[in-house]
């Protein structure tokens, strides 16, 4: 429903559908800044809601996935197959006593989880859930997402430092080292699809991959054969970025108890948790945008085919085809995003943890050079081979 309401905004690129809607319905007496403020309020609310829902679904999924991998069921009591479990957890965490350890740097200790969560919320703001459902459609979308998600590290280092616990400090130092090491291959491997698409904008990248039954996704070797290795590098890098096993050194529970969040409890701790799951989803959705077609899937192709819609052109607002396209696009990106999350969970529950020097070696000595090779190869392919491929010039 919400999607349909927002859809009425019919935005051009660079504007906000919520603002458009509000400007239409607001009486003349309402000043312009109030519309902007209301837009921000609604947008933040929606983003927080989306992040919370993703985090809740993520925790439930983690429990079910790990449970079924480990010959057990996971939560089964709260609701059908425990689907209400995250709500119960949330209530429990809210009711817990707010503890600040003695000797902790109180200000930093309180700010740290907020920064961590705020960074992922900010990144989520530019994340479109459908081609016409987003809070902000900015041209440097992916750049903004990467910048915001790496801000998490500042919060983590603050958390580790302010906790007044040596284990926390270890965890945060590891996180800082790890993130610096893996931002590089992450960014470089993303350059490959960015180069092919010629855009930083998530929706444009997605539109560029439209094609018969999703056969135009960048990951396919006939588009660019350097895309698959680039995706593998990207995926390894996002595992390290989101602190997921086998790179979960910052919170390595058997070594550092819980790493940087050892001293946290209750709602503050849940901020770290929400960040982790939201970031997992966000990164794998970014992977979906840049390698797996974004909104494009056989489903959206079918809808577009049936209703005769054109890629990148907004259809008439309330037509059935437009609504169906919005819904299928959202479904596509959510399914793709959670497929990536599932893959990350699968790895987590399968692999042992690597050591800090191995993490650094992998990041600096292997991933970064390989990513550069991918960029070079993909660039050469685009310049010299692309012209001979009829399906790339249609």
């Amino acid at each position: 429903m919400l999607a349909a309401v927002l859809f009425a905004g019919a935005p051009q690129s660079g504007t906000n559908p919520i603002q458009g809607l509000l400007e239409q319905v607001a009486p003349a007496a309402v000043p312009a800044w109030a519309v902007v403020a209301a837009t921000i309020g609604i947008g933040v609310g929606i983003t927080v809601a989306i992040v919370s829902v993703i985090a809740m679904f993520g925790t439930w999924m983690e429990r079910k996935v790990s449970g079924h991998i480990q010959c057990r069921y996971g939560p089964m009591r709260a609701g059908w197959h425990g689907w209400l479990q995250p709500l119960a957890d949330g209530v429990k965490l809210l009711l817990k006593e707010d503890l600040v350890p003695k000797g902790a740097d109180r200000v930093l200790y309180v700010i740290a989880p907020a920064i961590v969560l705020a960074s992922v919320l900010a990144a989520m703001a530019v994340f479109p859930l459908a081609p016409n459902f987003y809070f902000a459609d900015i041209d440097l979308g992916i750049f903004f997402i990467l910048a915001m998600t790496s801000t998490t590290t500042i919060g983590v280092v603050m958390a580790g430092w302010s906790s007044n616990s040596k284990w926390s400090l270890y965890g945060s130092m590891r996180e800082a080292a790890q993130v610096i090491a893996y931002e590089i291959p992450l960014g470089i491997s993303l350059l490959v699809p960015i180069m092919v698409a010629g855009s930083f904008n998530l929706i444009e990248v997605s539109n560029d991959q439209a094609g018969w039954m999703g056969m135009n996704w960048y990951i396919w070797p006939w588009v660019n054969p350097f895309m698959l290795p680039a995706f593998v590098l990207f995926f390894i890098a996002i595992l390290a970025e989101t602190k997921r096993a086998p790179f979960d050194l910052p919170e390595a529970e058997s070594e550092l108890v819980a790493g940087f969040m050892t001293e946290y409890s209750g709602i503050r701790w849940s901020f770290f948790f929400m960040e982790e799951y939201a970031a997992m989803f966000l990164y794998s959705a970014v992977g979906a945008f840049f390698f797996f077609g974004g909104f494009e899937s056989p489903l959206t192709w079918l809808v577009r085919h049936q209703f005769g819609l054109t890629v990148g052109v907004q259809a008439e607002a309330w037509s059935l085809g437009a609504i169906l396209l919005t819904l299928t696009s959202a479904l596509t990106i959510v399914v793709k995003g959670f497929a990536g999350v599932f893959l990350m969970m699968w790895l987590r529950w399968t692999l042992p943890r690597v050591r800090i020097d191995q993490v650094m070696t992998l990041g600096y000595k292997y991933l970064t050079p390989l990513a550069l090779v991918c960029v070079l190869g993909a660039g050469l392919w685009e310049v010299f081979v692309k012209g001979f491929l009829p399906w790339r010039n249609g």
Partner: protein
Amino acid sequence: MSQSTTLPTAAAGTGEREFMLDVRTQDMEVNMGPQHPATHGVMRILIRADGEICTGAQPHLGYLHRCAEKIGENVEWLQYLPYTDRYDYLAAMNNNLGYSMAVEKLMGIEIPRRALMIRTICAELNRIGSHLVAFGTYGLDLGAITPFLYMFREREWMMALFEKICGARLTYSYIRIGGVFNDAPPGWLSEVERFCDTFEEKWQEYVDLLMVNHIFVQRTANIGVIPKAMALDFGLTGPMLRGSGVDWDLRRDMPYELYAEIWKSGCFQIPLGKGERGTLGDCWDRAYVRVMEMIESIKIVRWCLDSIAPGPVIAEIPKTLRVPAGEAYVGIENPRGELGHYVVSDGGKVAVRCRVRGPSFTNLAVLEELLPGALIADSIAIIGSTDIVVGETDR
């Protein structure tokens, strides 16, 4: 090359050093434990660390000290048996066996053959269970959570088997002085056979998931190397000794109970560390020995199942034991090494001295030597590979 990249030596004075950059740094002292997931109980290791590198380690024990030896001097011979369950609670059958054998040695009792068979089955099943925990938690230490639960699946069955035979899952007190408490219930032996079949199938899973997993090998090979001479010097026993390539197993070399007969039948081997993936005596070798021992134990259980015959399960012993004066030492091959019981009797109802030589205690001493120079993450791998049970180190 700046000094900071060289490995600092152990016990570097006050721990304060001046680097070439004019930055004064100081080693950090970190308390690992007593509440820490990797110390397998309540043990504390004071680690001095330079960044991620350990420069010194000092284990502190005693958090689980329950005066077992003092209690042994104050309760009757038979009453002490339940206390033996509690030192190495993962291998309680073996503890029962070791203590019973020490008392039997003083008393000179002949044990019925069926009792010996059941004792061997129980001890070997318990060895499997103990190694499952050891190897599973080792995977857990290195971050692999799922194999641990797979191993607990089989261990659960093992404990259910023990529950059927003696009613307890962890602290059995089943092997008594003179035999075993009661005969196996009907159908128990065939269930053990089914367990053996299933276990052999599942065992391959552990090897595939963990033992040959590339990350696992990277984390354990060449880490915590104990050369042969060092192993002997520290008096290591069990998988720790065999992991260093020393071919020694009490079940073969100083056989007790039925093991001489079983060894002669040639049904089991003694797995040794060979330095296959790294250096001889590294963490991987110790894990390898444990994994291989599980399958050898299954073979021993199968031999017993094949040759068991009906008969009495406990010798005639009086209600109140009066053990002849004398002193005896009996060492048996516990899952963790040589479990020794040294008992002294003055002919009365109560022991004069009841000494327990726990293998974990001796094996743990090697940590002070192994940890300096290792990374923090490696120190976890090393502690895990010593496979200690704190109940036994502290007794």
